[in-house]
């Protein structure tokens, strides 16, 4: 007993000393380390000088490895069968769609299709596909592959739909009006003209059909991979993208490596990309400072100023692609009163919320649409904080003596609402100023979403993030009468607005569409079905060795051009 214990104790102490000693030396010594100690040296070069030594090591071994850390793991690597942004962030590197979005906006660029044509009636979309492209498994990419993928999403009976294994392509359903056999499903048929030409025939025009084609959710998988992996396709993506999938250990890391035969010459620049999960924001920032990771998603806005002034780190912001709001149930007492809704809207201090919660990385919102979007109506005046107007309208609404009202508070943080609790308190204080007493209601997330869909709430909080860069996804989802009882939680029904949104959806003339959306926003603003709060600009950080990294507003950006520089 005695011997064992003292031996173990000595052994442990010795081990700790040895480990500490190996790691104690700075960058200077490890430079001289031989190849065998590569991994260890890389690990230990974690001085205050950020990641630079690390990259020097990586360079020395001839490999460019980028570590991208985020807060949560991907749900699936079959992006079409999930709505999870962490999934498409990864598959964006592996799978490609027919079209792509520009680096910093939702403008369309060629993807797997180098050219495309739309017929005048907006019913025929012809795509001319890149030639000589192969999937990572060697299967040639052709029109038949595109058709297989789209039919898989549209038809639950399709041999690769894997319906029995729980696959549901909800993003496809949302974007293309449903599935095969549904009345509103827009794709009538898909015709393969030849290997490199494919025609989508629609039942009715869809104004944002091309925008959908740029979404990373609709990346094209190799048909051979469906045969090979079956329902395990969600763990084995095989695309044409710049990086090949290598391995995935759940809740830990996903490893991708360079696809040597990528269709664009000289790309990708990195040899490997590792997506790491680091759930804690503070721990993630420490890992960035110590050089263990190169890019961190999900920086706290409060840390942004510190990162900006810190040597060795670079602050990045995503363009705003969302908005947070306080919604009103417009079909329920007392908020069925328009003047009351307007009064409340005037009484909420949006600028104060932007300053308090986003450390300046947000702009007050006056429309339920991000400002960079087509058809954004900048002439709408909105509801700038104005207590006098609020009180006046409150009196007109017949509530000069004030009233009591319920506000449902989101139980989870979202990019558009990083701290719902504080927002609800600010709103509570704001409304107290005009004599409205706010009771805060708390629900768990799932019942919160369910009950607000059913209209149990008076006031509630939520937000919306864009996916295809089209106004329809914001305005129709949130405010079209057809979506009452679904995603229109304000129960807002205005025939004029509905008509404008319908016309805009059916038109393929983008200028005309923009016009309709602007008109709709003016009407919506007047009706005030929601108090739009802010558009947030999510912040993230990289080491200064990371070059050419451009965050995309959709949160999924290609890393093909990213480099690590010494």
């Amino acid at each position, binding site marked *: 007993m005695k011997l064992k214990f003292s031996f*173990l104790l000595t052994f442990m102490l010795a081990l700790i000393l040895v480990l500490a000693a190996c790691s104690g030396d700075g960058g200077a010594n490890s430079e001289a380390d031989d190849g065998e100690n*590569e991994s260890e040296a890389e690990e230990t070069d974690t001085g205050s000088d950020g990641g630079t030594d690390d990259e020097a090591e990586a360079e020395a071994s001839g490999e460019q490895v980028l570590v991208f850390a985020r807060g949560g793991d991907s749900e699936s690597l079959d992006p079409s069968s999930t709505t999870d942004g962490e999934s498409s962030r990864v598959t964006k590197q592996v799978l490609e769609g027919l079209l792509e979005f520009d680096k910093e906006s939702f403008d369309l660029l060629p993807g797997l299709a180098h050219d495309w044509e739309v017929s005048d009636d907006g019913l025929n979309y012809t795509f001319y596909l890149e030639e000589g492209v192969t999937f990572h498994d060697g299967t040639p990419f052709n029109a038949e592959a595109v058709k297989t993928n789209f039919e898989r999403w549209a038809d639950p009976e399709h041999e690769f739909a894997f319906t029995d294994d729980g696959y*549901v392509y*909800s993003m496809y359903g949302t974007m293309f009006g449903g599935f095969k056999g549904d009345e509103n499903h827009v794709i009538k048929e898909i015709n393969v003209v030849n290997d490199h030409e494919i025609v989508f025939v629609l039942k009715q025009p869809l104004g944002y059909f091309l925008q959908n084609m740029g979404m990373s959710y609709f990346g094209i998988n190799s048909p051979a991979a469906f045969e090979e992996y079956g329902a395990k396709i969600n763990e084995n993506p095989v695309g044409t993208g710049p990086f090949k999938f290598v391995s995935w250990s759940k809740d830990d890391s996903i490893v991708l490596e360079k696809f040597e035969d990528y269709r664009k010459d000289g790309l990708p620049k990195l040899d490997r990309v590792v997506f790491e999960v680091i*759930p*804690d924001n503070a721990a993630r920032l*420490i890992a960035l400072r110590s050089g263990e990771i190169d890019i961190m998603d999900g920086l706290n806005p409060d840390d942004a100023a510190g990162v900006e002034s810190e040597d060795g780190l670079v602050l990045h912001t995503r363009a705003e692609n969302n908005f947070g709001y306080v919604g009103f149930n417009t079909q329920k007492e007392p908020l069925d009163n328009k003047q009351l809704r307007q009064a409340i809207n005037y009484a909420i201090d949006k600028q104060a919320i932007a300053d308090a919660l986003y450390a300046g990385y947000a702009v007050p919102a006056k429309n339920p649409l991000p400002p960079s979007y087509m058809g954004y109506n900048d002439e709408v005046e909105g509801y700038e904080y104005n207590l006098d107007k609020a009180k006046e309208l409150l009196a007109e609404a017949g509530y000069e003596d004030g009233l009591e009202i319920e506000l449902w508070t989101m139980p989870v943080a979202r990019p558009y609402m990083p701290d719902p609790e504080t927002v609800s308190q600010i709103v509570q204080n704001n409304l107290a100023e005009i004599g409205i007493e706010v009771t805060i209601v708390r629900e*768990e997330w799932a019942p919160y979403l369910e009950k607000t869909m059913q209209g149990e709430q008076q006031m509630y909080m939520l937000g919306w993030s864009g996916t295809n860069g089209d106004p329809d996804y914001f305005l129709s989802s949130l405010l079209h009468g057809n979506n009452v009882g*679904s995603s229109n939680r304000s129960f807002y029904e205005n025939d004029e607005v509905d008509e404008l949104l319908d016309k805009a959806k059916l038109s393929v003339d983008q200028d005309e569409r923009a016009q309709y959306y602007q008109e709709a926003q003016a009407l919506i603003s007047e009706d005030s079905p929601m108090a739009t709060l802010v558009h947030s600009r999510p912040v993230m950080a990289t080491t200064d060795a990371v070059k050419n990294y451009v965050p995309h507003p959709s949160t999924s950006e290609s890393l093909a051009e990213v480099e690590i520089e010494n």
Partner: protein
Amino acid sequence: MFAYIMRRLLMLIPVLIGMTLITFSIVHLIPGNPAQVILGETANQTAIDDLEESMGLNEPYIVQYGIYVSDLVQGDLGTSLRSKSEISSEIWPYIAATFELTIFAMIFAIIIGVNAGIISAWKQNSWFDFLAMLFALVGVSMPIFWLALMEQWIFAQELGWLPAYGRQDSRDPIAPITHFYVLDALIHLDFPRALTVLKHLILPSIALGTIPMAIIARMTRSSMLEVMKSDYIRTVRAKGSGQFLIIYKHALKNAIIPVLTVIGLQTGVLLGGAILTETIFSWPGIGRYVYEAINYRDYPVIQSGILVIAFIFVIINLIVDILYTRIDPRIKY
């Protein structure tokens, strides 16, 4: 002895079935359905209905439970709603990660805890005793997340000695065999990587091991003090044995029994309850697995995950009971 072990194992069956009933009920009492949580705020009602249907959540609870238990009896832990993978194949890396961390945390806790307890009892009321017990008190009441963040801040960010997160160097990963990375690296005879993995273990092991260490130290001390007063120790002393031998050979054997109980219980607690440490150090263990599943309302994973944790807990306690008989032959079952 053998009969005893068999009896204990047979008793496990009703215990585990009872566990499934409890977890199943609790899980389904949590408000909100998984389809809604998985699809989030942008989902419309049709999408939610479709997903619910495909996940088999429209069946009555009793039918769902029946299917679950009958699968379980056939060794099928079910399929995760979130990842669509078989839980039985998915769960092993998580278990291995947690085991590896727990083993190192307990080695740390036992070596430091037992020795500190012994020395405190030996030199009762000395400055060492005083300091060690103060330290133990602080250790027991230490908020783990704070300790973990302080460790990361000092040893990873400021000093740069040790890595801040994860199980291994993500730029240079190991090809997993057993998913015990130390073991895997040794199987590959890859000593630099084994060293890297060990370094990744240090900070989380200390964070996780601090509370058990403190509890073990206090338990050892009080148990030792009691044994030291007993007659047979006086006899040994009268025989003229040295102090060191008296303590480590004669006293410890009897004093260690209650300590062993505490060690067994603490190991069980660490295996299931390391969520905080696993979260801060990004350790993909069983605690995180179940925690993420709760967020997603991934019923099968919650149920089977808790079941596996309970199973491990029971087995560890059984092992502790068997160890008693090895240490103290007077104990018989």
